[in-house]
Each structure stands twice: as structure tokens, then as C-alpha cells.
């Protein structure tokens, strides 16, 4: 079957391509709701290293998305089942290293085409069925939510058990999602969020306290911390975390930076801190996320607060419109209703 693929061929330029899809043991999914991630924007705007762009483009963007199963020979799914697509594609087994960290794994819109396609051929193991009546604009960005869930799960196994107060640095989408899920999963832990925009911090109504990073009380301490800042803000955020975290605390690094970030290793040594990184998730995290959607519907209601622009995509012009609107947003996820 001839499938239409919409690839980014150069920064800010989409082109059409065609590829044959075979009716193999894989599922065929019709994407319906796609969500733009900062990683997509780095390709779209051409802010990735020129060598990386040359190596990866042309490539279909988007690794956050949901769709409808249209064909499944395996019988795992019924036609019209609503599913979230897992962009991580393991190609080899490993009993120690998780699927999302294996060097052999592929990742949609990074090492292989993303979901900006007419139809997506995908293994049934890379699909998780969504609950009926779920808000599909929210479900569209389940991938980023699952990364938060993954980070919290790893935190649980890595961090020591004193969890009286946890700090989350950042006031963007990732910080919003991580603090929301952390508070749901650890209701007895005080959750403090640190950001630079008071208006955005006011949206974090479900946490115990929010602070501007310029106004953190000098006596405040947290047992552990999540860094959800990334880019140019990473160095300052990590520096603050190291200052305000108690000894033997654990720091989850979640913000992506294009450049190496200087870190105060002297204080890491002195306080005996642990740091771990997380940017991708695996099937278990998706399953857990979808389960939390079903058991805690209030989470989905809160997540609707970060839906920014919703763009009906019927043409190339609409794709560009969605990505350009996304560049101008202060906060929130841009969702594309995929009608192509």
C-alpha cells in the first residue's frame, strides 16, 4: 500500500514522500491527534547542529501522538480502537538496560520517521489502548507525560526514603506534568515548584507552594529535586538545586540542553548527591500513565489546562501554521488534528 509521508526536508520546509507499507504482522494506525514537542521544534527551526540536521533530514517529525487502529492482523486490537503510539522501538533484548536507554533502540522523529504520516505501520507492542471517552487532545501528549511517570518511577527506586519535601524546578509543560503526577503519587510529600514566571506558577494550584527562583527563602530545603528547565536555564537551575537540596538527596535531570552544562561537582561530592537523567520512556511507563488517566480522571482535567493551540491540519500550510504558532506560545502544548 502506498503511504503518504510528510517529511521535514530542511528547516521550516515540509515535503511529501511516498513509501510502500506491507500488510505484515504489524498494525496500521491512522494518526488523529499529534502533539508538537520542543525536540520537533529544534528540527523545524534548524537549531540542532548542522551536522545532525544533514544526517537526519528528511524525516517525518512528531513522536507524541494518538490514533485509531485500522488494521491488525495479530488481533490484539480491534479496528477503530483508540491507541497511543510508543515512539521508542527496541530492536534487541537486554535484561539489564531498559528499552528506552538501549543504544540499539530506534526513536520516532529522531532515528526514524515520526508520526506525520497518512498511516503509521507499527508493532502491536508499541501501542497502548486508551480508555473510552478520554480527551484525545490530552492523550496526544501522553509520551511526555510518560517520561514524567518514568522519571518518578526511577526516582522511587533511586532516592532515599525520606521524602518530606521535593522541589521541582521549571514552570513549563514538563514541570507542570511532573509536579502534577508527583503530587498524585506522593500525596504526603510537600511539593514545591520553582519558576521564573509568576503567572505560569499560579497555574500549579495542585502543589503545596510555588516560588520565583529569585525569591526562594534562604532556609528552604528539599530532600530531592527534579530539574525540568533545560536549554539555557539548565546551569542556573542545577546550581540552585545543589544549593537547596539536603545531603544525600537525588536530582532527576529532565530538561534537554543543546550544550554541555557546567555543574558544581564540589558540592555534589560534599553533599553526597545522586543525579540521574531521563528523557525517554518505555512501554511500562505508557501503560502506567494510561492506567493513571483511568483511575484519576482529575489528572486528565488538570492536563487540559496545558492544551495551547489546537490546529486543524488539512494542508502543508496548516502544518506550518501549527509549528509557527507553537514557536510563539508562552506555555502549553500545540495539538494538530491530523486530517491529511
Amino acid at each position: 500500500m502506498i503511504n503518504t509521508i510528510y517529511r521535514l526536508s530542511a528547516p521550516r520546509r515540509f515535503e511529501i514522500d511516498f513509501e510502500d507499507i506491507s500488510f505484515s504482522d504489524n498494525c496500521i494506525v491512522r494518526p488523529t491527534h499529534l502533539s508538537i514537542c520542543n525536540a520537533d521544534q529544534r528540527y523545524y527551526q534548524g537549531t540542532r547542529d548542522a551536522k545532525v540536521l544533514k544526517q537526519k533530514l528528511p524525516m517525518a517529525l512528531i513522536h507524541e501522538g494518538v490514533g485509531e487502529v485500522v488494521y491488525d492482523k495479530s488481533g490484539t486490537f480491534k479496528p477503530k480502537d483508540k491507541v497511543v503510539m510508543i515512539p521508542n522501538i527496541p530492536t534487541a533484548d537486554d535484561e539489564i538496560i531498559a528499552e528506552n536507554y538501549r543504544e540499539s533502540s530506534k526513536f520516532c522523529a529522531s532515528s526514524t520517521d515520526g508520526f506525520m504520516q497518512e498511516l503509521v505501520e507499527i508493532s502491536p507492542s508499541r501501542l497502548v489502548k486508551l480508555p473510552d471517552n478520554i480527551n484525545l487532545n490530552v492523550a496526544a501528549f501522553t509520551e511526555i507525560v510518560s517520561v514524567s511517570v518514568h522519571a518518578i518511577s526511577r526516582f522511587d527506586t533511586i532516592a532515599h526514603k525520606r521524602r518530606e519535601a521535593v522541589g521541582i524546578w521549571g514552570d513549563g509543560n514538563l514541570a507542570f506534568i511532573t509536579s502534577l503526577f508527583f503530587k498524585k503519587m506522593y500525596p504526603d510529600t510537600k511539593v514545591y515548584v520553582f519558576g521564573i514566571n509568576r503567572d505560569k506558577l499560579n497555574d500549579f494550584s495542585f502543589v503545596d507552594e510555588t516560588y520565583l527562583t529569585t525569591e526562594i527563602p534562604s532556609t528552604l530545603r528539599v530532600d530531592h529535586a527534579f530539574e525540568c528547565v533545560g536549554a539555557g536555564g539548565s546551569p542556573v537551575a542545577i546550581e540552585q538545586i545543589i544549593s537547596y537540596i539536603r545531603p544525600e538527596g537525588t536530582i532527576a535531570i529532565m530538561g534537554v540542553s543543546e550544550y554541555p552544562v557546567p555543574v558544581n561537582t564540589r558540592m555534589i561530592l560534599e553533599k553526597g548527591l545522586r543525579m540521574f537523567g531521563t528523557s525517554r520512556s518505555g512501554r511500562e511507563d505508557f501503560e502506567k500513565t494510561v492506567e493513571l488517566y483511568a483511575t484519576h480522571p482529575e489528572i486528565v482535567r488538570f492536563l487540559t489546562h496545558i492544551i495551547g493551540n489546537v490546529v486543524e491540519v488539512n494542508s502543508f500550510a496548516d502544518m506550518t501554521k501549527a509549528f509557527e504558532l507553537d514557536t510563539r506560545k508562552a506555555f502549553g502544548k500545540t495539538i494538530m488534528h491530523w486530517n491529511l
Partner: protein
Amino acid sequence: MVFSVILAGGTGNRMGNTDKPKQFLTIKDKPIIIHTIEKFMAHPDFEKIIVLTPMMWIDHTKRIINRYIGDCDKIVVIAGGDTRNETIMNSINYIEENYTLDDDTIIVTHDSVRPFVTHRIITENIDAAKKYGACDTVIPATDTIVESIDANVISAIPERKNMYQGQTPQSFKAKELRDIYNSLTNAERDILTDAAKILVMKGKDVQLVQGETYNIKITYPYDLKIARSLIEEEEND
């Protein structure tokens, strides 16, 4: 119920020296008709995919479907008629004999040699046929259309902005289409070039569905070259 009707009646006369009907020529090592059928297989709304071919090509069509798609009870191959519209009527008769033909029965008719049809076009056809009773897939004309009745001089140049090029699918409420077709005189039937005209002649509205420029009909060797270059370009790089 919604049925896909794949029209594979062509015998390949316009395809240069080839003696094989054009739907059996291959793109990316797969017959064109298989690419087309798969597109309808990947749409969950269809009860059955009815493939209509000339009688002498039925066995071959069944064999290649079996070879490329496998044993699939969702597909049936039956004989077409002498004309495009007679072929469509055969599909409606098949539905009546094997299912229930009622006012809500929809047929999405499609040329077997248009393998670039998209999921969106198919979905919009089904929606439009359900809502309006009939639809035709078109793209705005980019060339000026010139009319000449005697094939020597121009008799009219219609305003381009009102002109469209017809593609397929064309979709209909099957029972209504058949009833109207049966009411036509032989003279009226003789001037029909496609199924949408059956309804237009009788003053029925046929809704437009936006096609795609690349939803090409592979009719001439040139078309086959274009189709192959679109999908096989990557391999040749």
C-alpha cells in the same frame, strides 16, 4: 453498510505495447491493483471489498490477491460488465444477493489504477455519501479547459475557476443510483462517461470531495513512469 467497489475493467489498450491490463503492472514489485485494494483494507468502515474485472482476468486477480494479501474473506472478485456503469450495477446486484440493499447502503467506487488514493479521501467520500447521497472526488483544474465540438475549432472556453478534474472515488447510495440508472433510456445511457453523470443528468446533487494532484490514474506508460518515480525515488538515490 459501506462497500468498496474496485473497478478493474481496463484491458490496457492505452498502455503501449503491453498486453497485460494496466492494473497488473507493478510498482515497487507489487501489482498496482494490490496497492489499491490494500488502501481499502486499511479502512475499517468497509463491510466488503468488491473487485470487478473482465471475466477472463478473474482467476488471475484472485491468485495475485492471494499471493500478496493472503486468504482474506473481506475481498471478493466478480465479473464486471460491458461498461463502467454496468460494472457498478453488477456490484450492486452482488450486494443485493449477499447482503441487504437498503437506502443506507453506500458504495465507494474506485479505479483500480489509482493506488495513491488517501485515507482522508476515502473517509470524506463515505461521510459525503452518507450525508448527501452522492459525491465525486475532484481537484481544481490547473489547465484551461477548451471545448471543441467538431475537434477542429474551439466552440467554448469555460471559466477555469469553475472547472475541476474528476478523479475517483465516486460514492453513492447504491439503491438510489441503481434506481435512477434503471430509469434511463438507452440513449441516455450511451452518453454516460461516468457514474456521477447518472445523477447529474437527473438533477440530483453530487457533492465535491477534494482529491489530491497525486491521486493519478495510471493510464499511459508516462503515468506508470511518474508513479514509479514517486515511490521508488528513494531506492534509486
